């Protein structure tokens, strides 16, 4: 079982980005590019929101 919150985020983002990319683009190259963009957006936005929420515990 994965206990790391960050690893959970990375695994979730990678799988969801891969499925969306395969659904929305044709061709491996375009799928890989979109998947990378989505993965980065998922991880970055989660980290940014996490930082913004940090001053408001509970």
């Amino acid at each position, binding site marked *: 079982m*994965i*206990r790391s919150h960050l690893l959970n985020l990375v695994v979730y983002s990678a799988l969801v980005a891969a499925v969306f990319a395969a*659904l929305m683009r044709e061709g491996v190259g375009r799928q890989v590019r979109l998947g990378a963009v989505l993965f980065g957006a998922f991880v970055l936005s989660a980290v940014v929101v996490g930082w913004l929420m940090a001053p408001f515990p509970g």
Partner: protein
Amino acid sequence: MGTPTSDAGLERPGERAFRPGAAAIACLLGWLLPGAGHAYVGRPGRGAFFCLALLTLFGVGVSLDARLTLHLGLDDPLGLVIGAGQAALGLPYVLARALGGATGDVRSATFDYGVTFTATAGLLNVLVMLDAVDVALGRKA
């Protein structure tokens, strides 16, 4: 029924049109097993990818102490969406429940992660099913 096509994508969308009945079969197969609808309409490579990705997402979710419950009722709209989302994964969902491996542990630190993983896997499978229907109807190459 039209002729299923290969992953090579050499045919135009209009040339691969299936009957609506075939689209319904693709939808049903896609619900039973993620990616099976794509295999039925002649996209086995893409179907195998969806199967691998969604089963991994679901399996990780179950390992994270997810609870698989089918909540029917409008008193908890979010529970209804999550339950329906999980059930949209078809046979893997049924098997996980039948084998008793998804009773969940709300005390677990990863319980919410598990529920999110499993519900997302099912909801993504709905999109995959609709994609297979589009291919079957010739709306998508």
